[in-house]
């Protein structure tokens, strides 16, 4: 009866379960909220997912290496504001230059985290708790209580969130959404196909073994923080384009949202496992719930956070219990095969 369970990879099971929950949630809200299945709703949620997805992918890279990046919210605010400032001063810059500048700025901030964590050997939670405050402080001091407004931004930036790459029926795939999905695809291919990217898992699942296998763990961890910063920088640019009016509080709280999305998406908080598909589903699930609750007449919008907290608990608890169950099955089979005299070939665990 449990035979099929053994043959399925835990990550596949996890992703299937997440997709199922997501479908149920959408069906549920569809039955509760009038005009739920509309193009407008799709566009609203997809553009909102785009920003947090970029941050969550970077966060996942860091978490897979058994670290955490709590400074991403401050990096988003920092880049959104500074790139906005840059565009106000030089409106004629080529869009690609602007995007590159945003990513470079984010990468620089991420590199600071990476150097201190990887080479200074300071725990990531301490470093990024510190830079969460420091980056925000620098921004507040720099901004001098000014804010960036839509009126001062070049036209192409303001129009970017409405720009549509292609449409499927009524559903528009916005450029910003395409960018986020493109990044997700690239990182997915890298994590599953590239030897260099597999090192993230090696370092995260067993740093000592990785070091003995000749992997430069410091460089791997540094790179993860660098990429997390760069993606947060890119998210900062998308944030700027979507909201236009940027104050010093931009991106506040994104660190928790991204960690929540990553954890719901099945990335192990202790490193070593996690998939981009899971992160995409986790981010979408969290955001769909967030966006739908504000429109659900039955409960007030003040229920949002309480339900989100419970969702995270249940998602991770289900994961923990499932892993424990699979572990027990595997051990039972191992014992059975030992007694039958057919030693199993060691298989990689998910």
């Amino acid at each position: 009866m449990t035979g099929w369970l053994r043959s399925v990879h835990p990550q596949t099971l996890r992703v299937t379960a997440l997709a199922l929950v997501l479908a149920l949630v959408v069906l549920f809200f569809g039955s509760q909220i009038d005009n739920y299945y509309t193009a407008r709703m799709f566009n609203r949620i997809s553009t909102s997912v785009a920003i947090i997805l970029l941050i969550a992918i970077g966060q996942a890279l860091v978490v897979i290496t058994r670290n955490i990046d709590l400074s991403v919210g401050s990096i988003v605010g920092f880049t959104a504001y500074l790139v906005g400032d840059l565009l106000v001063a030089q409106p004629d810059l080529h869009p690609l230059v602007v995007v590159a500048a945003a990513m470079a700025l984010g990468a620089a901030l991420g590199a600071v985290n990476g150097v201190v964590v990887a080479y200074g050997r300071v725990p990531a939670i301490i470093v990024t708790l510190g830079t969460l405050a420091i980056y925000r402080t620098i921004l507040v001091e720099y901004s001098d209580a000014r804010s960036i407004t839509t009126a001062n931004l070049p036209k192409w930036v303001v129009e970017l969130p409405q720009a549509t790459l292609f449409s499927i029926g009524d559903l528009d795939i916005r450029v910003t959404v395409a960018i986020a999905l493109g990044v997700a695809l690239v990182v997915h291919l890298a994590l599953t196909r590239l030897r260099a990217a597999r090192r993230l898992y090696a370092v995260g699942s067993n740093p000592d073994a990785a070091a003995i296998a000749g992997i430069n763990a410091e460089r791997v961890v540094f790179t993860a923080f660098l990429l997390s910063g760069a993606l947060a920088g890119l998210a900062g640019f998308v944030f700027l384009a979507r909201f236009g009016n940027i104050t010093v509080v931009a991106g506040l709280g994104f660190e928790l949202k991204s960690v929540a999305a990553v954890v719901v998406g099945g990335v192990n908080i202790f490193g070593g496992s996690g998939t981009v598909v899971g992160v995409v589903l986790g981010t979408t699930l969290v955001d769909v719930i967030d966006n739908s609750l504000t429109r659900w007449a039955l409960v007030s919008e003040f229920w949002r956070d309480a339900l989100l907290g419970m969702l995270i608990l249940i998602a991770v608890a289900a994961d923990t219990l499932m892993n424990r169950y699979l572990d027990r099955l595997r051990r039972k089979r191992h014992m059975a095969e030992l007694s039958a005299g057919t030693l199993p070939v060691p298989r990689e665990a998910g």
Partner: protein
Amino acid sequence: MEGGLMRRLVRWEVLLLVILAVTIAVNSAMAPMFLTIGNQINLFQLSIEKIIVALMMTLVIVNGEIDLSVASMMGLAACAFGWLFQMGVPAGVAIPIVLALGLLGGAFNAFWITVIGMPSLVVTLAMLIGFRGMARILVEDRGITGFPDWFNALGQQPILGPLPLALLVFAVLFVVLLVVLHRSGFGRKVYVIGNSAEVARYSGVAVPRVKALLFVASGFVAALAGLLYTARVSAVRGDVALGFELDIITMVLLGGVSIFGGKGTLWGVLLSILIVLNLRNGMALANITGHLQTGVIGLLLILSVLVPNLVQSAGRLSFKPGSASR
């Protein structure tokens, strides 16, 4: 190994003492009234709820866990009190109900951590969002005031000499936790589990029970701190104590408590609390705004771990090549 550890701890607290002395000296030079009892009490008063929670957090982190939900529990306690009061429950009855709510919230965290076996980082992150959400359900976007005078007085008037109630709570809690952590069998278990939960389990320590007790206590202390905060500002809003967890954890880690558990003392945390309070007060005297203060504390947090690491590896490179780290 043991000797090296002791040496490092001693050196750590000496370093904190030096930082504290420098801060106080600079502050006194800037403002002559800085060292008066009035100003020192005042400086404690402004962050008293955070430092009360920081004491309990020390035990949680030494145990190798973390409680990110404390600030949200403070907010929930405050909002629950305000809500009950608005529903017509007398303040004297609402206080024990809210304290029980703190115990319940802590037990809720403990359930997922010890029974289900989830990491405390994830559980308390979820409840950082969850408890805050419950607080918002209770008061939505209202502000609640008009508590009885005797309740507000608890937060504002001195009750023993120049000392207000919250400061007495802090002092009593410090002494109690000092005995529990450094003088009792329970405290030894907290350290043993923090060093290695596996070793503790095989040594016959009831690991889940110790952990659960700490989280229940943490919820209770946070609820108490939330009530003290409510009495001090005599008003409740949904964002009470928002973001306090960062300040609280910073104080504990700056005090030399290892984020990986098993290391650190309450004395170190007391010194770091004094440093943070004096530093903030001094910066305020020098007209440095609240935000820049937070940045400076953040920098101090990173440096407090980075500098000893750098010194250590520099020492290893020049004196003991090839010696094992950790």
